[in-house]
């Protein structure tokens, strides 16, 4: 990919004596150097954007070295968390449904880079990494997955119901497509309060065939709501490939009168550019659809091996050619912002961070039986309620 190399002199300012050396080992500045944090870079996206009823943004993305390294760290953290969740599920500490996001990290990370915490994100059940991106902690994640009190929803939500109100993360929804009208409502409230913020309502290629999506598109366009509809197209709706479920798999065009943009969802910078563009568009002109062309390595959920409807070659092919973390790693190395060894170090640190969080989450307590009846209503009625046998668990609806 094309690189802009005009910044070289900035990089090696403290080591002017060694400018003559061409070997790379001695010239690398340490990973955590604060001198060149805001070194400006321009990265070109992997493929150009394709627009529907709109002018696609430029392929060149402005970024900084700090952001680039941040992307690597965040995506590696998300990847590690999902892999750890996989093993936790297999050791039966996580039960029920567990939908993993590995492979799609670039969407979460790129989106965060383009928006603020006042903008709202709402997504479906593949929400662990988006929660992390919105500022959630690993301990809260793992505790919720294991059903502990310390979880982000006090253990009462589970994998599909992560929420973080103070950073505008509205979940976390189990029913396919139902979150899109909710997203419309968030955008409605933003327009009502004249916030100058936007909502990203995310859904998958499977949900793109839901009627309520088109109802929501119609309303959003009619009312000029600042809603951005993000289709995370990982090409499979559980076991059904997109060409078997949709007559028109160009999800970015499905909005018809709503403009759309097709984005390479494995390229965090493309995602960032698209989200920034979409935010500007939505605030001025109303809704827009972003189709993120992405891929999930795991199956639909932990009960799905993921190989009955696609070949292992396909999965490993994508992993080799389009993996989002590898792309960032190559970018970092070619811009000489860090070394292989340092990046490996970061990954090792992340691994231990995740292991610590899991250990902490394992220690935390299960919810108290009285929690069965809390948060049913906001205001209490003092109604007596009881568990099934009417003896063991009793409480008052608080």
């Amino acid at each position, binding site marked *: 990919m094309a690189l802009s190399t005009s910044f070289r002199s900035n990089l090696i300012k403290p080591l002017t004596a060694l400018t003559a050396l061409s070997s790379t080992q001695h010239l690398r500045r340490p990973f955590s150097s604060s001198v060149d944090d805001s070194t400006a870079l321009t990265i070109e996206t992997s493929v150009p954007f394709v627009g529907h009823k709109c002018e696609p943004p430029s392929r060149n993305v402005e970024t900084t070295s700090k952001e680039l390294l941040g992307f690597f760290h965040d995506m590696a953290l998300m990847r590690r968390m999902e892999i750890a969740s996989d093993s936790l599920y297999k050791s039966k500490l996580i039960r029920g449904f567990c939908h993993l996001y590995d492979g799609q990290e670039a969407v979460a990370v790129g989106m965060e880079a383009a928006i603020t915490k006042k903008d709202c994100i709402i997504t479906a059940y593949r929400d662990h990494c988006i929660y992390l991106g919105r500022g959630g902690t690993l301990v809260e994640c793992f505790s919720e997955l294991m059903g502990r009190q310390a979880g982000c929803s006090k*253990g009462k939500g589970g994998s599909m119901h992560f929420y973080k109100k103070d950073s505008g993360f509205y979940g976390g929804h189990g029913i396919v497509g139902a979150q899109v009208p909710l997203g419309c409502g968030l955008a409605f*409230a933003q327009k009502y*309060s004249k916030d100058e913020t936007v909502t990203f309502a995310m859904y998958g290629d499977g949900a793109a065939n839901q009627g309520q999506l088109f*109802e929501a598109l119609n309303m959003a366009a009619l009312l000029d709501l600042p809603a951005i509809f993000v289709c995370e197209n990982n090409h499979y709706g559980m076991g059904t490939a997109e060409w078997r479920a949709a007559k028109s798999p160009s999800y970015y065009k499905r909005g018809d009168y709503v403009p759309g943009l097709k984005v390479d969802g494995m390229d965090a910078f493309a995602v960032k550019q698209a989200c920034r563009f979409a935010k500007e568009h939505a605030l001025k002109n109303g809704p827009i659809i972003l189709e993120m062309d992405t891929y999930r390595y795991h199956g639909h959920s932990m009960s799905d091996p993921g190989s009955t409807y696609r070949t292992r070659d396909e999965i490993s092919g994508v992993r080799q050619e389009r993996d989002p973390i590898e792309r960032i790693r190559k970018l970092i190395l070619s811009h000489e912002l860090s070394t292989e060894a340092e990046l490996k170090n970061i990954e090792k640190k992340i691994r231990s961070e995740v292991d610590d969080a899991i250990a902490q989450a394992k220690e935390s307590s299960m919810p108290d039986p009285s929690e069965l009846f*809390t948060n049913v209503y906001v205001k209490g009625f003092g109604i007596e309620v009881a568990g099934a046998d009417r003896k063991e668990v009793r409480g008052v609806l608080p």
Partner: protein
Amino acid sequence: MAAIFQGIGAAAALPSTEKFHSQSRRFVSARKGSLFVVRSDGRPSLGSSPRSRGAQHLITNAVAAKADASATSTASKPGHELLLFEALREGLEEEMDRDPRVCVMGEDVGHYGGSYKVTKGLATKYGDLRVLDTPIAENSFTGMGIGAAMTGLRPIIEGMNMGFLLLAFNQISNNCGMLHYTSGGQFKIPVVIRGPGGVGRQLGAEHSQRLESYFQSIPGIQMVACSTPYNAKGLMKAAIRSENPVILFEHVLLYNLKERIPDEEYVLSLEEAEMVRPGEHVTILTYSRMRYHVMQAAKTLVNKGYDPEVIDIRSLKPFDLYTIGNSVKKTHRVLIVEECMRTGGIGASLTAAITENFIDYLDAPIVCLSSQDVPTPYAGTLEEWTVVQPAQIVTAVEQLCQ
């Protein structure tokens, strides 16, 4: 107080000029600005300012009020007369004035003024965004209202007919009811979902549905049913102010009920039942339109020497077991009269609740009169037979009190 019932399209089932006595209202005149929550047993409970007990006078309505007695109380009680849909609108307007976050969304609520005129004039006053005309997309505009509520707005979602809200069942059940719980208390959903339901005048099966029975198991929501202009306005205001999602069930045939309601601001309690007529022999529990059938039957019963206690339960979820229980303890016999279907209806749950809690006080099994488990037919006579009629109520009481 006289409430004149005017049925829509004067069909034969009920005479069009029946006088009913709504005898449950206890008034407390308020000083400016303070707010009263009126309890069904007449004890006023002051919502926000316990100090202003000064100039109160309680008007209690007599049990078997004759026409002249009600005339006197009318004269001494200023207020204003209006129809039930106007009372709903008044409550809505007062709340929209009071809190800028309150907004309305539904089909034809804005420019058209609402298919039952409940939102007439509001769009010109508050604007098109605040009184939003939605496309015919119940699932998504209910979802939109719930999403807006998650951020702090207080939408009132109108279903043009309650039956249409079946299309929004997923949003109401999963998102509206459960989000407070599954988010560990992070999000409140202060929506009000309202609309007319119930059996009308030959509206056909799909437009005569009683959704109380379908929604009653959803955890996290509250359900109330209004039956008079007085309680319609009070419940509307209470529902809007409640932090919980509330489903307010109105009835198609009750919109033109006329009643005199107080000028002062009042908010009723969402979880309270209303004592319509105190009595000694039998407790009749009812709600919504069946209240009027019961009161008509009550006149016949009084003439025959029975003294029924009639309670309009108003709160369908949760039940006001306090009021109901006190009544059961007094009379020891219960008759439930409802418009819901027999299977899995409100009456069925109420029967179970009363049996579980008050079995020792019952002298006879609880009798539950509900609508037939059939789709409501179009033909007038058939439709009459699907719903409980006053004659059946009289027979049931006579049998119960043997």
